[in-house]
């Protein structure tokens, strides 16, 4: 009798935990069934975004290489960087992320994720107005790579550039953000492009729309089971923290797969921003991706109706708007860091001191600011006046110690410097950049807010001034 009870209890417990697992997996961006009508192969699932993950590791590896110069022109380093940027050859090693202590990474070669992929072919094709030289996205990145290969650990103190930051932040925009919001979530959602009643390509286990949606998801750069994780956990996974292995390793093989268990690029920045507790970009965007994928899957290999496409575009809109906000939050944050660095530097200079690390930090933070600001402008949407203001406020380079700034490049690609504004005036411009992000993008997390405390004070003094009390 007793044994019977124990067995029943165990059965109930295991059934309910199985139920919980099934429930949990519904939230994952994985295991969607094959819906292609005439599919002959033996694939069990239709989700596929290996090419995007290969590009993520090409980017992280390129960032690592960008900080490896010795201050002299270095053709070998440049060629290696270009292999990750432009090349498609087999045999490229993943330079970052790599295993660290107990945080074991499953893949070590780019080809394990997808072969013959590069970044250059997918970079923004329009003119980049936030950088001198009237170049396309790919040309700007190639220009930066050339400069980085000759810089000292990616740092150019004379012109004020940190190339690892510039290349990394702009790649995220010009490749991942642009491809997702300007291509996959835009024209490829139209009825006559990549329809849902045909395989994406003959013999593939996924339909046109399924794969289009998967590719956009891949570029965002989050683990497939993100909806089961907190922003803090996703952040820790991207940082490769040893104790993050257990939350990253969803399939329990003891390793972190760079395909569906790692966080990259703007997915990582969404998590980092949400850690403040004031925003929920990570889950909002991921949920819209999961819901959109479910909608396509539910169409069961039939062409999407206009109503279904309208609903799908609704999810795409949520993704694009929140993705843009993630970038704007980081423009806000790094404008604040730059402001604070300048505050320190000008105080030290006034006191007659020397600015070693503070100047290096300033250039690093400026590089992040500039990279995110450049990324914000390559979504295919014309930011109009906002873009012009942003570029004028930030300029082509940071204001340097002699109050000069890079104002352009000559025909040979050398930087031109001129006196523009003082560091004090430039600080005010950084403040205005923050204000622009609040006014135009409604940023909420507002990390490194120069005017932190203002809203708290307004609240304390009585936010609702309109009380109509007489005297």
């Amino acid at each position, binding site marked *: 009798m007793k044994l019977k009870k124990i067995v029943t209890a165990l059965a109930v417990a295991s059934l309910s935990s199985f139920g919980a697992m099934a429930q949990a997996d519904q939230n994952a961006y994985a295991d969607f069934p094959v819906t292609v009508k005439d599919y002959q192969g033996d694939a069990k699932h239709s989700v596929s975004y290996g090419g995007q993950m290969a590009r993520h590791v090409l980017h992280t590896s390129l960032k690592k290489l960008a900080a490896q110069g010795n201050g002299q022109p270095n053709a070998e380093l440049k060629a290696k960087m270009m292999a990750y940027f432009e090349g498609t050859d087999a045999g490229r090693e993943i330079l970052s992320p790599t295993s660290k202590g107990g945080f074991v990474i499953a893949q070590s070669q780019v080809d394990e994720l997808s072969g013959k992929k590069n970044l250059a072919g997918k970079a923004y094709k329009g003119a980049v107005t936030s950088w001198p030289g009237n170049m396309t996205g790919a040309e700007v990145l190639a220009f930066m790579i050339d400069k980085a290969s000759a810089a000292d650990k990616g740092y150019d103190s004379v012109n004020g550039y940190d190339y690892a930051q510039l290349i990394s932040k702009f790649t995220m925009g010009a490749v991942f953000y642009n491809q997702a919001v300007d291509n996959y979530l835009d024209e490829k959602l139209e009825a006559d492009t990549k329809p849902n009643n045909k395989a994406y390509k003959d013999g593939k286990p996924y339909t046109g729309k399924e794969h289009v949606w998967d590719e956009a998801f891949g570029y965002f750069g989050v683990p497939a089971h993100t909806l089961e994780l907190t922003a803090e956990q996703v952040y820790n996974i991207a940082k490769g923290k040893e104790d993050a292995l257990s939350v990253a390793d969803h399939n329990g093989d003891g390793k972190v797969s760079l395909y569906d268990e790692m966080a990259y690029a703007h997915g990582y920045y969404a998590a980092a921003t949400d850690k403040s507790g004031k925003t929920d970009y990570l889950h909002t965007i991921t949920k819209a991706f999961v819901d959109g994928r479910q909608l396509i899957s539910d169409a069961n290999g039939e062409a999407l109706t206009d109503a279904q496409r309208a609903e799908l575009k609704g999810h795409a809109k949520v993704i694009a708007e929140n993705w843009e906000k993630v970038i704007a939050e980081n423009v806000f944050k790094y404008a604040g860091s730059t402001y604070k660095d*300048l*505050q*320190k530097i*000008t*105080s030290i200079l006034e006191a007659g001191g020397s600015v070693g690390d503070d100047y290096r930090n300033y250039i690093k933070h400026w590089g992040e600011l500039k990279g995110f600001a450049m990324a914000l402008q390559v979504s295919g949407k014309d930011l109009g006046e906002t873009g012009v203001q942003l570029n004028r406020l930030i300029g082509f380079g940071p204001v340097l110690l002699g109050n000069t700034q890079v104002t352009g490049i000559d025909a040979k690609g050398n930087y031109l410097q001129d006196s523009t504004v003082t*560091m*004090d*005036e430039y*600080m*005010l411009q950084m*403040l*205005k950049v923050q*204000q622009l992000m609040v006014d135009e993008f409604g940023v909420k997390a507002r990390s490194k807010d120069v*005017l*932190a*405390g*203002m*809203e708290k*004070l*307004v609240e*304390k*003094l*009585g*936010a*609702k*001034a*309109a*009380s*109509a*009390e*007489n*005297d």
Partner: protein
Amino acid sequence: MIETLVSDYLTELAEMFTSPRKRVFVGYLVAALLIGMLWLRWRFGSGWLSGCRQMLSPAIWWSSSARADYQILLLNRLLMMLISPLLLSQVVLATLIYQQLHGLIGNPPLPGSLLPDWSVMTAFTLFFFLLDDFARYFLHMLMHRWPWLWAFHKVHHSARTMTPLTVLRTHPVEGVLFALRSVLVQAISIGLFLFFFGSQVDLITVLGVNVLVFTFNVTGANLRHSHVAIGYWKPLERILISPAQHQIHHSVEPRHYDKNFGAVLAVWDWLGGSLHLSERDTPLCFGLAANVVEGEQSLKQLYLAPFTESYQALRSAGRHWLRRAARGAVRMR
């Protein structure tokens, strides 16, 4: 939409009595009642019960004037709820002030480099209180001196009997002006202090309210609009406005006209020559004039008449100005 509006409205109404930030917070009302009863006992030897009865008399609390107060209160809450989101926000103006200072002075000092935290807090609390009190005095004075504003402010002065709720007997145009005054004062204080002291800036509070405002409210501020004429020691009445002094401000007696504009401090009136000390044993009559005019407490009259009167005042001021300009032009020739 309508549901949220109704629920917001009811919440705001309730907040007027439950939030220590509001003048008619129930705690302050109870404090005023106790202070009034103590005063009546000390000054006239009234018993506790009779003092209480005198203060809560239906002749005061259910007069036609008091009933108009309640109607105005209910209607204004709704109007202000709709208008206030349209007004300039403190944050926008404070940011602008901060940026202007940045442009004029250069970069702000590092936090902590000028003064220690406690003195920044004290200075901010005091500065805000003084600027706010001065702004209240100044706007109030203009409301009396400029005929086109007086047309609106008359609504407040048309009260014949006064209860603490008379503080909310305000024409909505005046309500908007008060809100803008408050925005300006907050923005100047915050913009200025945040620029010079950054993250050090904070307010000294009791129950979440500026400690000085709390002190003013808890020590019987609500008796200003009442029939309990508490006067202070004369030298103190040059520094702080007593309830009796504010009641003089509401008196129909011509020699009391345009006196005691101040809210908390009397020094502004003292400096501006409009101070009038309390008068012991002078019975006061409240209102615009001694004679009661037919319909003076009707809502229609109170809300609409000020617009025509203000327009006429502006038109006659315009004509007057044009005549003067024309005369000046003739003389120039």
